[in-house]
């Protein structure tokens, strides 16, 4: 960014200079969320890659008020911030965002998340789903897809990558009958922006889960982040859906879903699938079920 661009720079809420890996999908998604929220927002961030690469003291990439407490409590932290803003009479013109990774959201933080949703706080929760505990070195989480190899679901004679399907976290959140719950992908930036803006226009608890490819953790080239994001959507493995008050309200249609082959080929976490037909088939089944369940091609 040149000197003359400084005025423009001022408009960004999450700025460069942080230490994310090249091609990090999470940093891109976080920037979009922060920019959509604008100046009148504050962020509670869970422990994880995003927190670590964006705020190494004494530097911070955040130009909105930002706070990190622990791994599992960003929902509760945001609940407290929201309660304070309510007390101060500032909640109508300040947006509160809680965010964390898939591990911080679906596993260790799910209790605090459920509590926040159930209590009806006016908070947008954003889950950056890179499908494993990346900050600690690629361990399996409840959102790691079936068959993916991670450092705790490795390949061996007795284990062939992750043995469980992704936790249906979007449905779990929607089942709280919150006004808005959606999945999105960095592969589809406009769709993501629309969803974040829509969520922020709604009062009450909202949840957005964003698929964010991780070149290091998934083993793909760093220039492929967006393509891989798109590819996951187009094969049915990452359906983009919107729930309103517990009801499926909108799906991103995929008229002719592609086989998962191209998606898995580009990532080393799935490399064993190229030699293991049964495993490849089991993951294709997951995509097929998604296509049917959400009516992606209807």
């Amino acid at each position, binding site marked *: 960014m040149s000197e003359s661009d400084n005025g423009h720079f001022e408009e960004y809420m999450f700025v460069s200079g942080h230490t994310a890996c090249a091609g990090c999908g999470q940093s891109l998604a976080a920037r979009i969320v922060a920019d959509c929220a604008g*100046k*009148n*927002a*504050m962020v*509670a*961030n869970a422990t994880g890659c995003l*927190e*670590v690469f964006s*705020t*190494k*003291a*004494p530097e*911070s990439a*955040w*130009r*909105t*008020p*930002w*706070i*990190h*407490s*622990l791994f*599992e*409590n960003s*929902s*509760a*932290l*945001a*609940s*407290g*911030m*929201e*309660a*304070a*803003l*309510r*007390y*101060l009479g500032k909640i109508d013109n*300040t947006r509160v965002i809680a965010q964390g990774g898939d591990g911080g959201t679906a596993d260790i933080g799910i*209790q*605090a998340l*459920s*509590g926040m949703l*159930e*209590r009806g706080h006016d908070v947008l929760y954003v889950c950056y789903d890179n499908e494993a505990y990346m900050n600690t070195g690629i361990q399996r989480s409840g959102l790691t897809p079936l068959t993916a190899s991670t450092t705790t679901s490795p390949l061996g004679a007795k284990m062939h990558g992750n043995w469980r399907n992704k936790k249906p976290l979007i449905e779990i959140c929607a089942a709280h009958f919150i006004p808005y719950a959606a999945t999105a992908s960095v592969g589809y930036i406009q769709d993501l922006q629309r969803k974040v803006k829509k969520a922020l226009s709604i009062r009450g608890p909202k949840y957005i889960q964003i698929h964010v490819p991780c070149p290091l953790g998934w083993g793909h080239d760093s220039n492929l982040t967006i393509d891989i994001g798109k590819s996951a959507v187009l094969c049915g493995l990452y359906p983009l859906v919107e729930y309103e008050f517990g009801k499926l309200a909108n799906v991103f249609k995929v008229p002719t879903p592609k086989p998962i082959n191209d998606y898995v080929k580009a990532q080393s976490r799935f490399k064993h699938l190229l030699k293991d037909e049964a495993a490849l088939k089991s993951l294709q089944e997951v995509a097929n079920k998604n296509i049917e369940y959400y009516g992606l091609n209807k």
Partner: protein
Amino acid sequence: MKQFLEGSFAVAEGAKLCKPGVVSAYPITPQTHIVERLADFVATGSLNAQFVNVESEHSAATVVLGACAAGVRVFTATSSQGLIYMSEVLFNIAGMRFPVVMVCANRALSAPINIWNDQQDAVSLRDSGWVQVYAENNQEALDFVLQAYKLGENPKIMLPIIVNMDGFILTHGMETVDVPANELVDKFLPPYKAPYKLDVENPMSFGLLGDPTVYIETRYALHKTLEDCLSMIPQVGKEFEATFGRKGLDLVELYKVEDAKTVIVAMGSVCGTIKDYIDTQREEGKKIGLLRIVSYRPFPKEKVYEALKKIPKVLVLDKSISLGSEGPLYTEVKSVFANKKPKVSGFVAGLGGRDITIETIKDMVDISRKKEVRCEFLGLRPELLKEDFYVGI
């Protein structure tokens, strides 16, 4: 106004008088009555606060952290398993320097599960960076809450505080307490003005990653500020006395220690019982006294030393145990008198990954040649120890 109240209701009245904007807590015996009463105040409108019904103590502590970070005065209360469940957040709150005030209804830890009183819960968290004071009776518990905010919110202090009161013995014991008038409390405790907070007008980042180049200075700053409380606690107590006309916070209380041949050291409500015992013994001419530890963190080593240095026999009564060692209060009282042979110096280094090099070891030995030290930090970066880390009153 004098009222006949159980201790839980007395501290709830105390918290109400401080006008917290956000209250969050989770039920656990014997704390529950405190939060129930506060919920009642909010429900009836006598307390204008957001009452957040959380799903756990971990979230209760986190909610008050978030609210305090947004610049609002907060209150929480817990006990036993709840306190230990909060512990991760409690270290975090102290590290972030937010003046959260909590009442702990002291209770034993499981297993076996046991709802009755001891002080193992709070004593186990002595290293968390929170100021800890122990009330002897319900009046003190109420008064300590007012003084806790006064102390913690001082921009030179910015520390969280646990007001400890023995579970059941105080929380469920009925006593006459003087509930001070609103106007007096307002005079003593002005509204909280956060020196730093989450604010869209002035965006700041909190809770950053502190790598080995900065971490140990944050610990040093916390430690020094806790030591500053050794002078601030009595000062707040004096201000309290000037406003309300009864004795305020202090580091210790000396009861008939002057001429005593034997002095008992203890904390909390048991000190009332000990005083009664001393009175009867004194009638029989037995020279017994009591040193009551009011401030357990910071630990008033000098006061303890001064009070006990000429006493032939000291008996330390712990209501907790450092399993595998001894009573924690006993360890600390004894450490005050460890200045004989051999000379034992204490050093702190290597926190948060700061390298301990040959130079560090050399520094340590060099310092020990010049003086005897108790808690000397090695390898600090003085340029970091400015107001950023909140050190020094």
